[in-house]
C-alpha cells in the first residue's frame, strides 16, 4: 500500500460562520476514506462573535489533536482578517484558502479600530500560495449566503485526496434535508473556484 498523505489544517473564522459544521464534514469525509482523524475546537465564550479556530488533522495515525504554528498545510480562513491573523501557522509553501468576505470585529464596529486596508494585497504580499474565494457571493448564487462554509469545502476539496461521492454523501447527512440541493450546488461552485483561482476583492459582509 502506498504511503497515505498526512495533512494538517487550521480553520479560522468568526463565531456564527459555520466553522464547526465545516470541521464536522471534513472529519467525516476523512473517516469515510479510512483515515485516522483528530479534530479540535473550543466552545463557550469565543463563539459570541469572536475569533474561532478549529484544528483538523488526518493521516495513517495522528497523535496530537492540535496543529502547531509553522506546520500547517492548509489554512482555511472563512473571513479575510482571520486569514491574515493566522498566516504564520502555515508551513513554508502551505496554502492559504480564504473567503474574501469582511466581517467587522467589535472594536471596529464600535469605531475604536479600523479594518485593515487592502487586506487582499496584504495577504498576497505576505504569502505566495493563495486561493481566494468570494464564498459569500457564490453561496448567494447557489441559493443562500448561509452556505458559504460549504462553498469553502468545495474549494478545499481540490487540494484533498477525497472522492467527490464521499463529500456529497457526508454533506447530505450534515445539512437539513430541504437545503441539500442548495448545499451541493454551493459545493460545486466552490470546486469550480479552484480551477480559476478567482481574483478577489474585499467584499463587505
Amino acid at each position, binding site marked *: 500500500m502506498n504511503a497515505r498523505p498526512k495533512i494538517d489544517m487550521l480553520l479560522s473564522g*468568526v*463565531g456564527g460562520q459555520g466553522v464547526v459544521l465545516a470541521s464536522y464534514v471534513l*472529519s*467525516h469525509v476523512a*473517516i469515510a476514506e479510512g483515515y*485516522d*482523524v*483528530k*479534530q*479540535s*475546537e*473550543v*466552545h*463557550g*465564550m*469565543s*463563539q*459570541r*462573535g*469572536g*475569533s474561532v479556530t478549529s484544528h483538523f488533522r488526518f493521516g495513517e495515525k495522528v*497523535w*496530537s*489533536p*492540535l496543529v*502547531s*504554528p*509553522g*506546520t500547517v498545510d492548509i489554512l482555511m480562513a472563512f473571513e479575510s*482578517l*482571520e486569514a*491574515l*491573523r493566522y*498566516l*504564520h501557522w*502555515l*508551513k*513554508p509553501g502551505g496554502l492559504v484558502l480564504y473567503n474574501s468576505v469582511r*466581517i*467587522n*470585529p*467589535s*472594536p*471596529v*464596529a*464600535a*469605531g*475604536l*479600530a*479600523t*479594518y*485593515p486596508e487592502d487586506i487582499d494585497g*496584504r495577504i498576497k504580499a*505576505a504569502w505566495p500560495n493563495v486561493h481566494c474565494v468570494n464564498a459569500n457571493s457564490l453561496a448567494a448564487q447557489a441559493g443562500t*449566503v448561509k452556505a458559504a462554509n460549504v462553498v469553502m469545502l468545495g474549494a478545499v476539496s481540490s487540494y484533498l485526496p477525497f472522492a467527490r461521492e464521499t463529500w456529497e454523501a457526508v454533506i447530505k447527512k450534515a445539512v437539513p434535508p430541504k437545503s441539500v440541493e442548495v448545499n451541493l450546488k454551493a459545493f460545486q461552485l466552490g470546486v469550480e473556484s479552484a480551477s480559476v483561482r478567482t481574483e478577489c476583492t474585499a467584499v*463587505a*459582509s
Partner: protein
Amino acid sequence: MTKTITETEKAIEILSGNEAIARGAWEAGVKVGTAYPGTPSTEILEELSKYEGVYCEWSTNEKVAMEVAVGASMAGGRAIVCMKHVGLNVAADPFFSSSYIGLEAGLVVVSADDPGMHSSQDEQDNRNYAKFARVPLLEPADSGEAKEFVKAAFEISERFDTPVLLRTTTRTSHSKSLVELEERTETEPVVKLKRNWTKYTMMPQNALARHPLVEQRVRDLAEYAEDCPFNRIEMGDPRVGIITSGVAYAYAREAIPGASFLKLGLTFPLPKRLIASFRSQVEKLYVVEESDPFLEEAVRLLGIKIDGGKELNTLLGEIGPRLIAESFAKAGVPGVNESLLAEVQPPVEGLPNRPPTFCPGCSHRGVFAVLSKLRLFVSGDIGCYTLGALEPFNSVHCSTCMGASISMAHGMAKVLEVGAADTSPADSKADLRNKPVAIIGDSTFFHSGITSLIDVAWNGGKTLNIIVDNSTTAMTGGQETPGMGRTLRGEPAAAVDIPALCKAIGIKRVTTVDPYDLKEVERVLREELAADEPSVVIAKAPCVLEYRIKWAPCRVDSEVCIGCKHCLKAGCMALKLVVNAAGERKVEIDQELCAGCGVCAQLCKYGAIVRPEEAEGGKA
C-alpha cells in the same frame, strides 16, 4: 431525540471526549447523571440525556449536582456528576465527604479543566483534588480512552468503595477522535433503601472510624495501579524516557516520536514499582504534563530521579507539540520531530482584535448602555453579561466567581459606610459612581446568587442588584434554568418566580423592566440608586440567540445621519461606519446581522435610525 442502539449503527464513530464520556457512562449502565453547565464540560450531560434508561438533570449548582449523584449511588444506582474545574470548588464539600463514606454503586465525578482559560476565570489543575480528597484519578488522552476510562471508573469505584475523579482538559473534552461503540450493560434496578448509618452518617465518631479505611484504600489503589492496564510502558529509544498523562501524551508522542513512554492513565495514587522499573530501563527520565507539576512532584517524592520536568515547559496555559519539541531540542534530547522545529514567521502585527461580543439584538445591550452612561461601578458575575467589561461599555469592574456579584457589592457598600462614618460627612455619598451595583444572570442567580441576596437583606445591605433574566443559561449554549418551567429533558416543571422570591427573602423594592427601553431602564436605576434600602431590578427579556428572535431590521436615514458615532456605543456588530462617495461619514446597518432591537435607534440623538413599525415586523 432518544438514542438507542440499532443494528445499523456503526461500531466506530468519531466522538468528542465529552460525547465519549456520555457514551461510556451509558454503556456502564449508569442510572443517574447530574451537572451544572460549564465549558468545557457541558456536552457530557447534554449527550447522556439523549440515551434511554438514565435519569439526567441540570442541577441548580455543582454542589447540588454532586449531592444528587452521591445520594443516587448511596441508594445503589451508578451515578455520574459532571462539571467544569471551578465547579468542583463549589462541589468540594460533598466531594470530600463522599470520599469518606464511599458508596453502594459506582460514583464517577468528571472535572473538565480548562488550561489556557478558553472560557474560564482560572486554570487550576484539579488533579490536586484527587490527592486532597484521597480518591483515585483517571486521565484519558483521547475520546477512545475517555469512554474506556469511564467504564473502568465505575468498576474501580465499586471495587474500592470510593468515588473516582475523571479529569479531562479542554483538548480531551472538545477534541474528536475515533471511538468503538459497545452495548449497554444493564445494572441491577434499585428497589429499596439500605441503612448503614455508621458508614454514611459522618458525625465525628463514625468519621474517625472511616479515615483509616480511606488511607488503607489509597495504599490498595497504589498496589492496583502497578498492574492497571491504563499504566503502561511503551519502550522505544532507551536514551529518552518520558512519563506523561492525558493529552500531554499525544503532544509528547508527536514531539519525540521515537522515545520510550510510561503512559499513565491512573495518576493518583502512583505505581511506585512500575515507575522505578521504567527509570531503570531508560538513560534519562523526563515528565511531560500540562499545568501543575503534579506527576513530577509525586515521582520525586517516591525518591526517583528526574532529569527534566516543569522547567522544560510551563505552568501557564496549554503546552502543545511545538513547545515540547523546542524545549527538548534545546535541552539536547535526541529524536525530536524536526518538522516542529521549523522557523515560524512572526504574526502580522497591528491587526484589530476580535473579542467575543454581545450578539445583535442581545437583551443585555440596553442595560449596559445605561450602566455605561451613568458610569456606575458594576460588580459583575459569570455569564454572557461579563462581556459588558469590554469596549465600548467598560462597565464590569470586577468578576470573580459564580454568585459573587451581589455579595461583593454588599461588602464594598459596607466598607464605604464605615469609611463615611469615619470621615467628615462625605459628599461622595451622593456620587453615583461610589454606589456599587451588582449584575447577575438568571441562571447564575439560581446557582449561588440567592444566598448572597439573603445576606444583603438580612444584614441591612443597601445595594442595587440587577438580575438580567434572559430565561436561559446563555453562555454555555442555552441550557434550561429553574426559572424556565421545564427540565433538561423538556418535561414541564415548576418555575421559580424571581420577584416573589426576592420579596420572600426580605427585599421590598423589586422592579421588572424591559431592557430594550433605555429611558425606562435609566429612570428605574436612578430611582433605585436613591433608595435607602436594598433593591432588585429584573431586566427581563429572552435570549435572542436561544429563542431565535429576530425583528425587522433597523435602517439608517443617511440624509439625517451626521456620522457622530453616538450609536456605536451600542457596541453592535451590525453597525458600520462608512465613508460615502461624497466623503461623508455615515453609519450603515447590516440588514442580515441586525435583529431589530432598536437600542442603537434610542442612542441616536438625531432620529437617523428608523425602526420598522410593529406591523412591519419591527419590535413593539
